[in-house]
Every structure is written in C-alpha cells, then in structure tokens.
C-alpha cells in the first residue's frame, strides 16, 4: 500500500501526540505512535495518530487529500516516535508512505528539488494489537462545551500552582466545580491557591450529583499545548469536556485526550480565601515583574525570598544574602494599612507571568497572613499566596 500526503500537515499531526508517548515502558509499543489509515474516497484518507502513557491517551486524526494511492485499504501499525523527526527532515512538500503489511514497517520517501535527489527511510514498527484502545464514552455523566481560548486562558491562570509532589496526589490535579453558568477551576500546592472560572455554552447533566471532579494536571498541560490559539494542530474553537465515572475526555475538533480522574478529596478552596482585607495595593504588572527579577539576582539559589513593604505610594522590595543587599522600589496605589511581609518571589512571578491586565492588585490581611492577588482584567482570577514566616 502506498499513499502520498502533504509533509507539513502530517508532521504537525505527529507533533500533537508524540510528546505523550511513554518514554520507558515494559510494553514496547507504548513507546511508539499508533498510526491508522482508513481510505475514504479515491483521493482522500483519514489518518489517526495515537500515543499513550500510563496516565493519558491522546489521539489526533485528520483527513488528507491523497495525491498518489495504490492498493489502499484500512491498516494500522505502531511506529517509533522517531517517525516525527523523519517526517520533519524529509525534503519536499509531499512525502510517500509505502506500508509493508506483513512486517509492520513503513518506507518513507521524500523528493528533493532535483529529480535525482531522493531520501528513503525504512522504519520498523510493531504489531498494533498491544496498543491500548481508546475508552468509549457511551453514557457520560457530564458533558460541557466551552470556547477553547477561554478554557486555555483559565487553565493557564491556575496550572502553575499545581504541586509536583506525588506524595500529595490530590494537589497534582486541578479541581473543577460546576456552578450555574460557569466552571470554577482551582489548583493548589498547599503554599498557594489559584482559582478562576470558565464559561460554557452548552451543558448536559446526564447524571445528577456530578458537580465536581479532579483532573490530573499533566493532562491539562497537554490541553493548553494543543487546543486553540497557539496550539500546534488546527483544532476547532470549541472544546467538549465529558466525564463518565472515573474517566475524562477533552475533545476539540479531531483531537481527543483521555485520562482517568483523580480519586482524591480536595479541600474547599473558597473557605480558605480571605473575604475581608486590611489594605490593598495596585501595581503595574510589567514594572513589578522587572523589579522582582532584579531583586532575585541577589538571593541564594533555592531560597527566592524577598521582603515586601507595601506603603501608600509605593512598594519596596528588599533582599539580602552573602552576595550583598538590594532595595528596589516601584510605584503603587495603596489603600488601608501598610504591610511588611516576606514572600516567595518565584511564586509571585508564576502568577504575574500569566497576568494579562495592566495592573495587579494585592489585598492583604496582615503580617504573617496570606495575600490575595488579582489581575485587573479578569475578575474571576484570584491567587492566594501564603507568606514566609521569619
């Protein structure tokens, strides 16, 4: 079987999935990409690429206009992830794939500008029967549709605050809670809490009582990478989210991401966020980022602690270490009480770097108590950061 397809499109399709392929697995085919070809008409075929690891499965499919085809029929095989690099480096706009059905191998040809310049790769694959199938969502408990830029924005606002510590599994996930017309997202690594929300357009609640769930952070990072603007593969502007018992599916256009939901208790985030404040301070985001990065130069590696003094007309940031001392002041519009507090500047920068508004607003409750930060563009985005007690 031979088909000829556009090289760039196939490369981008592979890009969506290859990162997910397990880097080391006892099942060799899990380290590869599952490729399925199904002929649709004389000159078109659907190619589906799937990669899986122990946490998630991602699949991207696309319909190709086939410029050359011989003996095309449905066929599947697992190829090593190196196929991506091969496709990337081949010469020419169109590549030919010649499949060897008996040996699960493929020969890839690229044609250079000159007639005699040609590349030929023969790549050994695996029998696809060991590859896990994609789970089916026949009776979802919950089905939501969201605008993909909106979901991406919401995920970006909270994903930085998840924990990487596997000993606290609940905090490696993002908590989703369904309210009347929005989906509230929350993340925490116990030192800070980030929460925001995302609107949804269509909603069906097929099973009563499914109002919240906990999704693995790794999976959602993949969503940000893949869906919507900035995503590598052309997908639709909407994302569909489905849950069924302990499974989760995120789908946008021809990309589907499957995962298991985390079965852990998540604390009530709303309860810990302060409601009353002693003072507040509004600072230009860009200025603050620059100020923090300057002050961080003099902190010890691994201890990015800065001392903040919030006053009516400005914020002073101080650091001292064996290298020296720094004092950096930025303009601020302060209200209420002044405050002196030590904070982890890396934790602050994590949040500031996803702020899109002009200003960031600090609201504080007192020394040695948490501060609540807001981006002035998004009312729903709140970041609660606990200080460093000194």
């Amino acid at each position, binding site marked *: 079987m031979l088909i000829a397809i556009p090289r760039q499109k196939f490369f981008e399709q592979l890009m969506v999935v290859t990162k997910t392929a397990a880097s080391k697995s006892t099942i060799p085919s899990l380290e590869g990409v599952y490729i399925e070809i199904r002929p649709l008409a004389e000159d078109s075929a659907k190619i589906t690429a799937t990669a899986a690891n122990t946490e998630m499965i991602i699949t991207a499919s696309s319909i190709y206009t086939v410029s050359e085809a011989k003996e095309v029929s449905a066929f599947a095989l697992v190829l090593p992830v190196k196929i991506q690099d091969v496709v990337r480096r081949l010469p020419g706009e169109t590549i030919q794939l010649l499949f060897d059905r008996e040996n699960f191998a493929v020969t890839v040809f690229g044609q250079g500008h000159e007639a005699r310049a040609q590349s030929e790769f023969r790549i050994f694959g695996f029998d696809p029967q060991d590859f896990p199938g994609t789970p089916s969502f026949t009776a979802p408990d919950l089905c939501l549709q969201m605008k993909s830029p909106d979901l991406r924005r919401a995920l970006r606002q909270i994903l930085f605050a998840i924990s990487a510590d596997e000993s606290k599994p609940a905090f490696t996930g993002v908590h989703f809670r369904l309210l009347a017309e929005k989906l509230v997202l929350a993340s925490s690594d116990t030192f800070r809490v980030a929460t925001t929300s995302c609107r949804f357009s269509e909603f069906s609640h097929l099973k009563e009582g499914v109002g919240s769930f906990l999704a693995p952070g790794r999976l959602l990072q993949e969503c940000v990478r893949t869906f919507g603007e900035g995503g590598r593969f052309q997908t639709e502007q909407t994302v569909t989210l489905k849950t069924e018992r302990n499974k989760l599916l995120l789908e946008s256009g021809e990309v589907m991401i499957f995962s298991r939901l985390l079965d852990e208790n998540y604390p009530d985030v709303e309860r810990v966020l302060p409601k009353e404040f002693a003072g507040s301070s509004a600072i230009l985001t860009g200025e603050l980022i620059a100020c923090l990065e300057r002050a961080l130069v003099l902190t010890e590696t691994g201890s990015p602690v800065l001392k903040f003094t919030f006053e009516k007309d400005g914020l002073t940031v101080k650091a001292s270490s064996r290298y020296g001392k720094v004092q950096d002041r930025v303009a601020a519009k302060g209200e209420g009480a002044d405050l002196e507090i*030590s904070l982890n500047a890396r934790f602050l920068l994590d949040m500031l770097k996803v702020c899109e508004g002009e200003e960031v607003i600090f609201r504080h409750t007192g020394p040695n108590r948490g501060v609540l930060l807001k981006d002035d563009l998004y009312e729903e985005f709140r970041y609660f950061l*606990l*200080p460093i007690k000194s």
Partner: protein
Amino acid sequence: MKERVILHADINNFYASVECLHRPEIRNRPVVVGGDESLRHGIVLAKNYAAKATGIRTGETLWQARLKCPGLVVLPPNYPLYLRYARFARQIYADFTDRIEPFGLDEAWLDVSGGDGVLTADTIRERIRRELGVTASVGVSYNKIFAKLGSDIKKPDATTPVSRENYQTVAWPLPVEELLYVGRATRAKLRSYSIHTIGQLAAAPLSFLHGIFGKVGDVLHAFANGQDQSPVMRLNEEALIKSIGNSTTTPRDLTCDEEVKIILFVLCESVCARMREHGFLCRTVAVSIRDNTLFCFERQSKLQAPSHISGEIAGVAMQLFRQHHNWLKPIRSIGVRCSELLPANGPLQLTVFDDDARDKLAALDETVASLRKRFGHFCIQRASVSADRPLGSIDPKGDHVIHPVGFFRNGMLK
C-alpha cells in the same frame, strides 16, 4: 605555613575514674560501669585499671565480666555526673586555646599551634589531675590523627609526642585498628591483604587502597602517612549537629507492629524533644532496625514539610518500618534519626490548609515537654505507650549516652 601543634587529650577510664573519685571505698577494687541488665543493656561501658588487670574488656557482657573477676563492683552509669566532669575538663582546655573539638565526652582535640606542645600537654595533665582528681593521657603531634594515636600509647597520665621525626618508629608499628576509622570491617579487609600495622598501611600504594575502599581508601592512606589536614573545629555545639537520633535495645525482643509502634513513639518523642531544645526542624527521618541475629539496616524518607512534631515523625517512622520490615525475625533494637536539620526560627513557607492542626500538635509537644521538665519524664505518656508498661517505661532522652560526633561531619568525604 608554620607546623601545627595539636594535642589530643583522653581522660583515662573516664566513667570509672569519676565513679571511683566519688566513692573512695571502692577505689582499689575492680570497678566497671555497666548498663541495666534487666533492660538488656548489660554490657561493660568502662572499667578501672584493677578491672582491666583481670582481663575485662569494654563492650563485653556483665556476666562474662563477673566470671573473670568475682567480687567485681558493677555501677550504673551516672551521665549527668560525667557530663559535669567533661565540662570541667573543657574549661581547663579553654584556658589554653579556643580551638577545642570534643570527641565524645572524654576526648578532645586542641589546636595549640605556636606554643610548645609537650609543655602545654604536661600543664594540662597536671591541672586535670590536681583540679579534677582524674588523669589524662595526651598525644602531641602535627595532625589530629597522630595526636589521637599518641594519647593511646601511654596510659595513664602521660604525654606522648608523635612528631615528624619519630612517627615512623612510634606510630607505624602500632596495629592498624588503632587508626581512627579502621573498625572491625576495615581491619578484616586490610588483614586479608596482609596489612597489619599502620606502617604497612602507609606503605600500601594509594591506587591499591582506592581500589579496595574508594574514597575512604584515600583518607586511610592520608591518615597513615600523617597527611591529615582536617582542622580542629572551634567549640560551637550548634554547628556540629548534623542529625539527631536515638536508638534503644528494647527490654525484650519485639514481635509485632504494635510493640514497634510503642518504641518508635518513645524514640520519636525523645528525638523531637531534643530537636526542640536545640531549635531545629528536620526534613528527613531514618529508621534503623536490628533483628535478633544482629542483622541491621536503615531506611529513610523525606517529610512533606520540615517538622519537629513527634506525632508526625513517628507516623513517618512507622510507615517506613511497615514498608521495609517483613517480620521474619524478632527485633532487638530500633533507632530513629532525624537529619537535614534547619533552624526552627528560620524562614518558613506557611501553608494554606493544614497549619492549624500542626500548630496544635506543636503546642501539644511543647506542653508535654514543660510538664516533663517539672514533674519528670513519666508524668505524662501517650495511651498507646502506657499500654505496655515494660516497653513504654524507657526514657531514652534521660538515659542517653553521648556518642562521639563523626569525624567526617565537616564533609571531607564529599
């Protein structure tokens, strides 16, 4: 650089000498200080010269000692008293130098560079004898290792110089196990290569020793050749502490998780109380287990947050134990060690969800510590600990022995 002058002072038969000083009636009889046999700590910790003459050795069991020497006086250890004398001795040393590095209770290195080593050593010996009523042996050398060797050569009440001129005749003929860090295992290995004396060790090629022992081989080579460069630390207790641990040989062999839990709680309370006294939090907890065949192992685990809360640390210790012990053999001894210490009053990242509960636990530990200080260790006990009286009735903190601080703690092996 000018040659260093380093003394190593070793108070002779420290525990036994202090006991004899306080009990004139037994001075001329064979005396040993030994642990409590009813709690299975019945070994000889120290002996006087009369006991030594009968062939009693440190570390052997009290019943063996009694066989060798009928009429032996066995005394229980009185650590607060020994500690007092150790402090007196350090006060004397402090009159000569500020660079004093204690090694256990009864030994210390002194850096007296610039002075006359032998003269200073004699003066120190004289003062210890006159002011404390005990005797000391002092080694004088240009490095710590040979100074320690020197103090072991002539006992009691003697000064032994080991200089660059004479070390080949004084130090090299000594058996290799006299060298610091040559223990039983290393000695056996060296013997299998026919290395019996320090001189033979010094003559062994560096590459050969490195091949057998790795980095330790380099160190042994340097030690045997008097090339030890390690400085005498200044007397500064806080900086010395790298980990705080506690182990105990249990009054009876342990056979189930419940019994282990009691001992772990007792040990963790002691370790946490000590961390609190020194103002530390720890990041890592290690549990060591020795079974009745004396096979032992240690496993460690990182804490989620730095802690000195006994309940938390005991929880982690118990989890470690459950993970790594399979109960094929009963357990004879258990230890808990907390390391990666950081100051408790240093900066601490607060957390969102669980601080209140932890604050309460910390306050509880604090309260228990103050009650115990006022009314004694056994005035308050965990219910689980008091469930088994014999096991629960050990007070590792009160009974504890101060062990020499490791020679390598300043990271020379890193």
